[in-house]
């Protein structure tokens, strides 16, 4: 495996891992919540239209929302019960998004017509795409890009490799780690379905070296499957943030660089999260849509950190209560990792498909002031930027309103990994500057 040690992406930082609290804890099933709030936008692309009305009875797994364009997805009822409300509700992104509220009837019955396929490896690719779309499967790593789009590459783009992303490079999060340890065969089957659909023979599973148990379990699963005409390799990766970012992962494993503004397809690679592979297996084999996922609830502010298998739409409040509640007074609650996650202002926010973790920090363990100083031009952000761009300049450009200048310095290549803000000795909120500039650029494009 020396191959994977030599190739590395530029920049990056080594963060404190903080995974000890939950990486050894088996996943527990979260109790059924009394009510779920299912946002109609849990994916990149067009928002879903509701298929039910207030007062309708729904069952678990029933499709309740559907989008109209190509880049969109579907949403499903995650419990059985009654639709009580369809209105904008708080969403982990911070804004209010239209959502369907379902009150549980406690029966937890599957909807009719949930049927799997025995020979799931031989499903026609066209049909598989429909299954993936109708199961509402999106990238479970956090970006929530609709998976059926990734499975439909344009004809002129030849896909050579599939990469499963099990790097989980953000501190604290252990949900993918637990999934890999507990459901390895299902992940491998899911990967095989993806490989068949794209007619690819070679695949890698990228895992950071701080998860030796996951690496050895997946390796043993692969050795059982040598007879089939497929080559799957587990790639142990150096522990460096952001190893799990799509572009950096591709660079580390197959040493290819995605052109600016391009997609992994442009270099013949398709990347999926391990959780996504698991969801694809469930949809193809058992016909089950994506209605639950593993969420790590951890941090200094929660009494019993846990990995919980939670239904989509469960509120943060309910999740934290099932982990023994707050330990002391909470200072900050983050959905996602500490680097790229978003701080929340209400606990009514539901768990959505991309929610990998809920982090609770007690008073004193999170920085909460907003003081920052002028840029001192030390260049640390440039040294550690994995995209090789210039965050310090963007901060200054934002303050001076120089949107075009920032655009010409490749601002749009930023993946918002948060390293620049993390390394800045002046505590400048550089990612926020960049997001502000990106929104100004989008506004300008719309006007033009």
């Amino acid at each position, binding site marked *: 495996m020396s191959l994977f040690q030599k190739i590395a992406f530029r920049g990056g930082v080594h963060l404190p891992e903080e995974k000890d609290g939950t990486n050894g804890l088996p996943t527990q099933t979260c109790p059924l919540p009394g009510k779920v709030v299912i946002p109609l936008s849990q994916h990149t692309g067009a928002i879903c239209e509701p298929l039910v009305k207030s007062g309708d009875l729904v069952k678990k797994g029933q499709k309740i929302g559907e989008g109209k364009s190509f880049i969109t997805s579907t949403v499903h009822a995650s419990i059985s019960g009654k639709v009580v409300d369809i209105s904008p509700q708080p969403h982990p992104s*911070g*804004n209010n998004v239209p959502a369907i509220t379902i009150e549980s009837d406690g029966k937890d019955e599957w909807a009719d017509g949930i049927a799997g396929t025995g020979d799931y490896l031989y499903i026609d690719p066209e049909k598989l795409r429909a299954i993936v779309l109708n199961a509402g499967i999106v990238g479970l790593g956090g970006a929530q890009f609709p998976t059926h789009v990734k499975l439909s590459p344009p004809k002129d783009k030849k896909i050579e490799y599939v990469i499963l992303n099990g790097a989980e490079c953000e501190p604290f999060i252990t949900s993918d780690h637990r999934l890999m340890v507990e459901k390895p065969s299902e992940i491998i089957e899911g990967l095989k379905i993806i490989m068949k659909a794209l007619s690819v023979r070679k695949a890698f599973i990228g895992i950071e070296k701080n998860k030796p148990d996951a690496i050895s379990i997946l390796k043993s699963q692969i050795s059982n499957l040598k007879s089939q005409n497929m080559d799957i390799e587990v790639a142990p990766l150096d522990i460096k943030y952001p190893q799990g970012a799509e572009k950096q992962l591709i660079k580390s494993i197959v040493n290819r660089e995605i052109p600016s503004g391009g997609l992994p397809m442009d270099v013949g690679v398709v990347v999926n999260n391990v959780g996504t592979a698991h969801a694809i297996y469930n949809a193809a084999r058992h016909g089950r849509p994506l209605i639950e996922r593993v969420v790590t609830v951890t941090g200094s502010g929660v009494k019993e950190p846990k990995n919980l298998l939670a239904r989509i739409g469960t509120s943060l409040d309910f999740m934290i209560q099932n982990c023994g509640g707050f330990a002391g007074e909470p200072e900050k609650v983050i959905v996602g990792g500490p680097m790229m996650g978003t701080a929340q*202002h*209400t606990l009514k926010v539901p768990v959505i498909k991309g929610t990998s973790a809920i982090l609770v920090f007690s008073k004193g363990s999170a*920085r*909460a*002031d*907003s003081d920052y100083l002028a840029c001192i031009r030390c260049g640390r952000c440039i040294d550690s930027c994995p995209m090789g761009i210039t965050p310090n300049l963007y901060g200054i450009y*934002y303050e001076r*309103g120089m949107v075009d200048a920032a655009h010409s310095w490749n601002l749009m290549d930023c993946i918002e990994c948060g390293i620049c803000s993390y390394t800045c000795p002046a505590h400048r*909120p550089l990612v*926020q*500057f960049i*997001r*502000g500039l990106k*929104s100004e650029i989008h506004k300008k494009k719309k006007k033009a």
Partner: protein
Amino acid sequence: MLSAIIGLGALGCIFGAMLSLASKKFHVQLDPREEALIGALPGTNCGACGFPGCQGMAKAVLKGEAPTNSCTAGGAEVTQRVSAIMGVEAVIKEKEIAVIMCKGGRKEAKDRFRYAGIHDCKAASMIAGGAKSCGYGCLGLATCETVCPYDAIKMDGNALPVVDEKKCTGCGICAANCPKFLIKMIREPNQIHIRCNSLDKGAVTRKNCSVGCIVCKKCEKACPVGAITIRDNLAVIDPFKCDNCRKCVASCPTDTIENYYSGEPRFASLIEKQLDESQSNAAA
């Protein structure tokens, strides 16, 4: 020594001759009116006309791409001068003044959460619409104060902007930069303003803010000239009907309607207060 002086002197003569020839050969004929126009414009390069600075507008006027009254900041006086240079009739635009359509400062409308980030309303409004309990209210992070090229906006102690009607030129740059669209450019004669922008239902507004418009419709009834109408849960004054009679101000139970400028030297007293504070701070 002598050879150096002669040598350098000769070089100077040669280059001087070359430069004078070049200036003759490559001479560009300038429209003398451009110089005059730049002189006539205020020279603040605020950009409110939509052209890159005053020179940009001067060029556009010469080409006929911009009307002579494009300079809102300069007002009637500049329009007349520019029109005189161009030899056309001056069409004077009515002067407008920026009005902040929100009274919910820190005391009246509480924050939903603590915001820690860039000190700028545009950036703050991208995070859950800003911290203010009212989704339509002023975020109080002074973006309007920062962008005003005429120093006409200052933040008061309650985190609300105050406009100096004497300094405000009506350029509209603050209005274009407010992410909550709270700044309206309103014609100068109008003195009475309904300082709320909330389109929430009355009960919701009431919960969020003590000075928001609760859509009680009392002002609509009190107005003798029918200038006030209720649109989308908000009372709106028609500036062309209103005659500043102040009856609506007295009728408003939440004190949302305000006689914004007349009588009270709000801006001047604010500056004095800030000066006093800084002096006492310096003394301490």
